[in-house]
């Protein structure tokens, strides 16, 4: 898409086989997603549970093998390649700060892991210094290097989890729900940290979340996913202030606003969530959609450009 894209994902498809009652089902988790990430940009991916947003992120860092599609880093296709060199460039922050640190390793070892794996450090002293500097950068005291995860609070752990992704400094960070397990007050601290680091290290970021508030805070652009596909994509403000796709609309409308004067309960209709095992033939959202037409039942809408600021929508009826 963009010539200056650091990351370019083309037509990504991922499916899993799921066993249920002795039968195998093929579940399409990601069904043809394309996106690109410009240098220094934060792209938010938002969607509800099971929409495939996490799978997109995991495919990019090589944790999931896609069925088809390409993932290129600065113009080099990474799918199926030996990924050693790429690994230091694209890194992932995980959701659960409790699970993402090995309880048997010190914070220092966890933070230095990417460097250790890839032979980044040339001396012990250099390694210690780098760990200390990185811990300081994420707002932790360097003495934390010798501690174990159980000695840290949730916020501290997530800082350590972030520290791990910036030593040595990468080009792209994939952040998969990095704050959703945190309390609001801690969440704000971590979001601030991420925004600071992005600026200081000139990172590009793919920020995956179910929380439009968080997405709105940190990202430049937003892609809304539903059942494995992007249904709407645009600049953050545009999506939040003027959602077009019927799904995006109900999503935005359903956010409980912290304002008792704007009560929405009972005012909006959002329908039943889809089953992963029974994908509709046409538009996946059609069964819940208030404006679905006959065409929507049979014909899958493609993501098409709509409007000026890079907005794209996958809907027959808007």
């Amino acid at each position, binding site marked *: 898409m963009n010539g200056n894209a650091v990351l370019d994902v083309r037509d990504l498809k991922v499916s899993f086989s799921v066993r249920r009652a002795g039968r195998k089902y093929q579940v399409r988790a990601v069904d043809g997603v394309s996106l690109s990430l410009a240098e220094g940009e934060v792209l938010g991916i938002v969607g509800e549970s099971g929409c495939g947003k996490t799978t997109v992120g995991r495919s990019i860092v090589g944790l999931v093998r896609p069925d088809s599609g390409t993932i290129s880093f600065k113009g080099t296709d990474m799918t199926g390649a030996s990924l050693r060199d790429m690994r230091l460039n694209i890194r992932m922050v995980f959701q659960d700060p409790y699970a993402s640190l090995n309880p048997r390793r010190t914070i220092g070892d966890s933070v230095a892991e990417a460097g250790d794996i890839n032979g980044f450090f040339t001396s012990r002293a250099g390694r210690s210094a780098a760990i200390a500097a990185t811990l300081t950068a994420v707002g932790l005291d360097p003495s934390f290097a010798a501690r174990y995860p159980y000695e840290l609070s949730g916020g501290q752990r997530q800082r350590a989890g972030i520290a791990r992704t910036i030593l040595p400094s990468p080009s792209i960070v994939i952040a998969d729900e990095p704050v959703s397990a945190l309390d609001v007050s801690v969440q704000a601290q971590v979001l601030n940290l991420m925004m600071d680091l992005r600026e200081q290290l000139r990172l590009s970021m793919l920020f995956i979340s179910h929380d439009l508030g968080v997405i709105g805070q940190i990202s430049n652009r937003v892609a809304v996913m539903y059942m494995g596909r992007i249904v709407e994509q645009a600049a953050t403000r545009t999506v939040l202030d003027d959602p077009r796709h019927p799904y995006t609309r109900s999503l935005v409308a359903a956010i409980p606003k912290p304002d008792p004067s704007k*009560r929405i309960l009972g005012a909006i209709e959002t329908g039943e969530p889809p089953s992963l095992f029974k994908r509709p033939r046409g538009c996946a959202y059609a069964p819940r959609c208030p404006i679905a037409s006959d065409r929507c039942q049979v014909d899958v809408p493609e993501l098409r450009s709509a409007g000026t600021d890079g907005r794209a929508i996958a809907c027959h009826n808007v």
Partner: protein
Amino acid sequence: MLSVRDLTVSLGPETAPVDIVAGVSFELGKGEILGLVGESGCGKSMTSLAVMGLLPQPGPRIRAGRVLLEGCDVTQLQPWQRVVAGHGRMAMIFQEPMTSLNPVRRIGDQIAEAVRVHDRLSGPPAIDRARELLEQVRMPDPAMQLSAYPHQLSGGQRQRVMIAIALACRPQVLIADEPTTALDVTIQVQVLGLLRELCNRLDMAMLFITHDMGVIAQLADRVSVMYAGRIVETAGVEALFGRPRHHYTRGLMDCMPSRNSGARRLPTIAGQPPAPGTVGAGCVFASRCAAVRETCRTAAPPRAEVSQGHDVLCAFPLDGGEPR
């Protein structure tokens, strides 16, 4: 309707108790929705379990305080004992609809079980009543779902079943402990709508526990904010969101991304809550408070009514002049 007075829940030995809920008091009127909001570990769930008589055994226990339902003391009674004593009109729904239903028993049976206890019905009438309850919670195709197992339902549907079970108790007070946290936003809005509608229709009071200020704002009539085992502020929902008087409440609201969307940086509350048992003589929030003064560290703050129905546990509350 429900009155909780100086409720204190403690862990550890009798000789050196660690209070995880310290002197919580609140009143819940008929048909009223009281939101209890706080961060994880603040003791809000323990409060709800203590009120319901469901504290896990062995584990925390009620060390002091009373729980009065329509003026009757039910503090030390478990739900079944309350039913026997004639004060069983209280019910509870929980956070995880996935695990809160028995996976090997049919939906209908699980509802009918509560019907049997509270309506003294059995056999087909109990099942009829169960179907009726499923209708009340807007379950699609209720007659069919009676014979379904929990795993055959979606998360939202399971939470509706939980609500139906609660309704089977014909409660005057419903305690909802983070009932929508595990649900997607589009489903959350449905469940919240249902709960409010039921409260209105059945004239039922609800104690709604959550960490989400947005949900509270949408649902509650009155709000209590909890911090480190204490209620630090109580007010009507408009007053609280309009003019928070406690520094913690204010901080909590300020750091919500959706309130600040687009801002360069989010305001934060420095530090982290004190661990239970490490609270000294002073204000529990002193270590994190931006406006802390010397007395805050040494003397417990007074509970002050800053305006009609608006209590704050702070020696130096924010002034109420400037609405946010």
